[in-house]
């Protein structure tokens, strides 16, 4: 029998019991649909995490002043004075894996413009910071190394600050007061939205770090050093090298803890993505249990069908069907059944994830690979669960089969 004939015979046999066929397929449809849907939701979520990770900055390595252990008493990181601008320069010069470096000083301050005021987070950084964070200005410009060297009173402000201080007014060139010091607004940052950790990134004012050190915070050390590694892959080795360099520079004995922390927001986001993947995997495996149940349903129906059609099998054998022919016939019926179910399930899964997207506002992404795997898997279910009934049919003795009532 040629392939087309085999498929035609299978379709015809399935068409004879439409209700039964549909109910049997339902198991596979639900299974495949559920798998496609959960994978699409999980993929959408992890996609979102990747997106926000990219938004965070360019292969960021973050060094913060860490807690110091003074005779058993842990001090807060703000009390640590050992992280310096010189450390930042040393990292930039001695660790080639780091392509950009900016020291950073953080403070909170009251901003005043006209009769408006706004309490926000002040960041004192170098010009490289804007590149490290992939954070361009949408209007005006950023400050220069010259501004840093001269501790200039210039600032770049985020959109939230603009809205709260200026309303509809154009802030460029205006002067705002930060703790009674006048600063000229030279740029407005492009909107960045929420950080992966839930903060409003646009609620900030960025000033040369030297200015913050000398005129606002009154300190000589820095709170953090931020930099970009040359690539995603070099983040980890760069972190290790920075730790080594800083331990050396801070003269730490081998038994002493670090007085700084080297981290990467990628770590955190990775962890998030990882737990999301585990969740997806879990849900998908629960969903695939129903594929298994669907497969058992196919096997059950095929066994019933073989029994019902014992005489037909006998007739086919009498007129010359070989065991392989009979086996092929029933196996192809099972496979057509599960493949049809798989195809409908894929359509249902895609429709379902689109519904989830539009109704619950969750990001979803249907991977072509997931569709391929689902279809292949349903075919495999058909072969696996169709094999035994088909074998049973093929093993029938034609004499007994012809006599079967």
């Amino acid at each position, binding site marked *: *029998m*040629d392939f087309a*004939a085999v498929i035609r015979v299978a379709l*015809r046999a399935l068409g*004879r019991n439409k209700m039964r066929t549909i109910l049997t397929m339902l198991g596979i449809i639900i299974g495949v649909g559920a798998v496609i849907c959960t994978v699409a939701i999980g993929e959408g979520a992890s996609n979102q995490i990747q997106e926000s990770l990219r938004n965070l900055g360019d292969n960021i390595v973050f060094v913060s002043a860490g807690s110091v252990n003074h005779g058993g008493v842990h001090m807060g990181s703000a009390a640590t004075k050992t992280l310096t601008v010189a450390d930042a320069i040393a990292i930039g010069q001695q660790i080639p894996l780091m392509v950009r470096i900016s020291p950073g000083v953080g403070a909170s301050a009251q901003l005043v413009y006209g009769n408006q005021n706004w309490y926000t987070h002040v960041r004192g950084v170098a010009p490289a910071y804007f590149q490290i964070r992939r954070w361009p200005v949408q209007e005006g410009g950023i400050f220069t190394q010259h501004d840093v060297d001269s501790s200039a009173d210039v600032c770049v402000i985020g959109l939230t600050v603009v809205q709260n201080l200026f309303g509809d007014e154009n802030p460029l060139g205006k002067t705002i007061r930060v703790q009674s010091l006048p600063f000229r607004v030279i740029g407005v940052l492009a909107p960045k939205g929420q950080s992966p950790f839930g903060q409003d990134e646009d609620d900030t004012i960025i000033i040369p770090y030297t200015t913050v050190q000398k005129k606002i915070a009154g300190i000589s050390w820095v709170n953090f050093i931020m930099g970009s590694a040359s690539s995603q892959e070099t983040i980890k080795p760069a972190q290790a090298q920075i730790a080594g360099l800083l331990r050396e520079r801070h003269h730490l004995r081998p038994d002493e803890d670090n007085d700084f922390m080297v981290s990467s927001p990628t770590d955190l986001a990775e962890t998030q993505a990882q737990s999301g993947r585990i969740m997806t995997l879990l849900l998908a495996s629960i969903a695939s249990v129903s594929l298994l149940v669907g497969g058992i349903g196919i096997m059950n129906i095929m066994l019933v069908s073989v029994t019902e059609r014992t*005489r*037909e099998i*006998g*007739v*086919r*054998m*009498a*007129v*010359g*069907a*070989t*065991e*392989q*022919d009979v086996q092929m016939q029933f196996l192809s019926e099972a496979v057509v059944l599960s493949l049809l179910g798989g195809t409908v399930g894929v359509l249902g899964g895609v429709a379902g994830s689109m519904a989830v997207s539009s109704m619950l506002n969750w990001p979803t992404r249907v991977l072509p690979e997931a569709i391929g795997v689902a279809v292949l898997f349903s075919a495999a279910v058909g072969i696996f669960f169709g094999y035994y009934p088909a074998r049973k049919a093929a093993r029938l003795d*034609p*004499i007994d089969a*012809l006599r079967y009532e």
Partner: protein
Amino acid sequence: MPEEMVQSRPENEIAASPSGAVIYADNLHKTYFLGEVQVHALRGVSLSIARGEFVAIMGASGSGKSTFMNLVGCLDRPTRGRYLLEGQDVSKLNNKELAGIRNRKIGFVFQGFNLLSRTSALENVELPLIYSGVPHQQRIERALEALRAVGLEGRESHHPAQLSGGQQQRVAVARALVNSPSIILADEPTGNLDSRTSVEIMEVFQRLNKERSITILLVTHEPDIALYAKRVVTFKDGKVRRDAPVDDPLDAGEVFRTLPALDQDEEEDKD
């Protein structure tokens, strides 16, 4: 394949098979093992049937005639003895080879018609051709020709449920005929039919036998049906008890003409 096999075993053909014999059974034994009990269904049957013969097999149930038919139909293998079909020893073939032999050399007609339900007459007749790999167009032509031969032109697309018993059996005969087999084996073909329809079916068999020289082997327990054959073989206790030609076989066509005509209504019913 069968030609090759014959060539590879020339001694079979020459030494054992009388020339012209379609069926040559030599001391066939068949023993079934039902648990501890041995059932000797055939105890040494030797029979030779030549091309173009029309043989009726008779015997009580348990006489071994069904077992013999299963062996002749290549549905089963003998425990002992040899069976040559057109000179080819088929008693040692495996299941796949037997399926091929059934497909090309044997046409079955059963008591219960055994047509595939919800499948058109044409497709039922086509069935053996599907398994012998005949291309689609040719299948249809040959199936139509077989249906014409049994007088069923115009009923190709009818399903078995839409046909009378006699017509269903004629579809079965067409199916048995379509692969031009060496022999047609009919197992109680009139068992489920009334006497008038039985005569119709016998007429088809006689015509095929006469016009196409098709060898026919017919199992029946009705003596008046056996009279349409040219030779009657009677089985008893697993052996051939009597093997005799029929002196003056009935002509089904003539018998049919002597039957009282049906009412118009009944005629309609039949269609």
